[in-house]
């Protein structure tokens, strides 16, 4: 069985990608998957080369043949997504591809066509193969794209006999996050000691419990507020979730990212401590 590890956060900007990147060099036989498809940043540090690039077709969208259209307005009235304007022009970003408009059109002026909603990249990196993707700005169906990235990552893992997949997730709790966490072996939630961090942690903890995913928490930048860090620990102990790591705020981490270096490959002391190696050991098993 493949060890699939996902890193999520609820709140954005807590350090998911920095931590994901820092974990990667400690694994030998892995596949990387960046599932933050509307802000994919992992490759900025990993620097993989594109081996294959392909369009992702999320669903079908209507195209109107204005030679046939009689402007009867049936499609406009039937669309529940306000994706067709009164003057019978399609608002692409609102369309969910349900094809009700095609069905109600009395003169067959509407046909459905494949819609490319993003791109999927297959990369070669010094740490192993990587799959990542980019959702076209404004698109929906990011959940579908995330599912596709994970599927491709598993295909590569089986084909190349790789035992671990590390998944960089996205902030929030909606379809893209649900899609990133379902069926994983472990979830690591990265939080920060702020009132917002705690609030958002609670929702994401609720989510992992709902989907029965084993989760542990990293409190990143814990020393920015020892009081809030304490509050987070109290909450987690009530929820019976372990804090697996507490990382201090360190300008050297920010600087290494600014220099496009993976923090754990620089000389930052934290990444050679016993706590860090215990954490890596936990992830491996």
């Amino acid at each position: 069985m493949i060890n699939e590890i996902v890193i999520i956060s609820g709140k954005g900007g807590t350090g998911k990608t920095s931590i994901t990147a820092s974990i990667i060099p400690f694994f030998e036989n892995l596949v990387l998957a960046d599932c933050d498809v509307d802000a994919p940043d992992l490759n900025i540090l990993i620097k993989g080369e594109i081996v294959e690039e392909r369009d992702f077709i999320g669903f079908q969208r209507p195209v109107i043949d204005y030679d046939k259209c009689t402007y009867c307005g049936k499609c406009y009235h039937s669309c529940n997504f306000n994706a067709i304007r009164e003057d019978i022009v399609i608002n692409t970003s609102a369309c969910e591809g349900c094809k009700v408009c095609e069905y109600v059109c009395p003169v067959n002026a509407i046909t459905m066509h494949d819609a490319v909603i993003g791109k999927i990249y297959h990369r070669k990196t010094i740490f192993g193969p990587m799959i990542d993707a980019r959702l076209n700005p404004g698109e929906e169906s990011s959940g579908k794209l995330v599912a596709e990235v994970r599927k491709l990552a598993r295909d590569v893992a089986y084909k190349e006999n790789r035992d671990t997949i590390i998944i960089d997730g996205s902030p929030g709790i909606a379809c893209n996050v649900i899609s990133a966490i379902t069926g994983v072996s472990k979830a690591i939630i990265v939080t920060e000691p702020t009132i917002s961090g705690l609030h958002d942690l609670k929702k994401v903890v609720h989510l992992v419990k709902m989907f029965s995913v084993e989760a542990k928490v990293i409190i990143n930048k814990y020393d920015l507020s020892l009081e809030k860090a304490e509050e987070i620990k109290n909450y987690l102990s009530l929820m019976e979730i372990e804090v697996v790591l507490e990382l201090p705020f360190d300008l050297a981490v920010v600087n290494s990212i600014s220099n496009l270096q993976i923090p754990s490959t620089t000389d930052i002391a934290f990444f050679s401590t016993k706590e860090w190696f215990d954490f890596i050991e936990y992830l491996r098993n």
Partner: protein
Amino acid sequence: MKIAILSGKGGTGKTTLSVNLFSFLNKGTLIDTDVEEPNGHLFLKGELIKEESVLKKYPHVNDDLCTYCGKCGDFCNFNAIIPAKKKVLVFQDLYHDCGGCSLVCPTNAITYQDKEVGKIYYTQVSKNKLFLYGNLTVGEVSGVKIIEALKEKTENEELLIIDSPPGTSCSTVSAIDGADYCIICAEATPFGLSDMKMVVELLRAENQNFGVVVNKSNLGNDEIYHYLEEEHIELLEKIKFDREFARIMAQGELLINHSEYFKEKMANIARKVLGESYDQ
């Protein structure tokens, strides 16, 4: 005037900017449309005056009328309704509310029932200031309906600030729809720059006017400024990172109440974006 604050990357300071700018102004309405993880209410301690459910529909099949013809399942693009031999299975979470299944049902066996996907909350912050936020129920797949509800309730506001969700997907588009001006809250790191470029692409495609606030400007490098210059994008303000700011925000306090520096920054942004009329 409707102003949306957005970011691409999470954690750049959208909410910090939104709640402090809003608190600096002497009137107006703020909506927090990051309904997956709303945080504005943690900083704006107003009086809760109303809460409303946001509903979505899901199909209900009347077994007495259903002939198990399978047309609903064939039509559905979302696998939300699957007719088995003697029972039609409905998957509420996959249902998109398009109404297709009842449209194709030859025996009118399908009607709709309501399900709550989340709530919106109305808060009176002070006499002239209203704050609304939405909260998506855990397990629901999309917050767009809640964002649309927030936008609809505030469409006639004279001065509206919209705190948007991170990313560049459909929820962000729905949050910024109808805005007169967008403020991108960015970070000077390579991640911040990369995510900001996606936002710029989105805003240009939507023909939006926008400018950039670089937050935590002393963390990172200069690349973002070169980019803004090359692309002729207005740099509205730079705000430095300070451990003391982080500590104040961590407690749920407003920075404008604690820092003259920060207050001055909000005044500059308000002046640039809103003009003198809203300056205090």
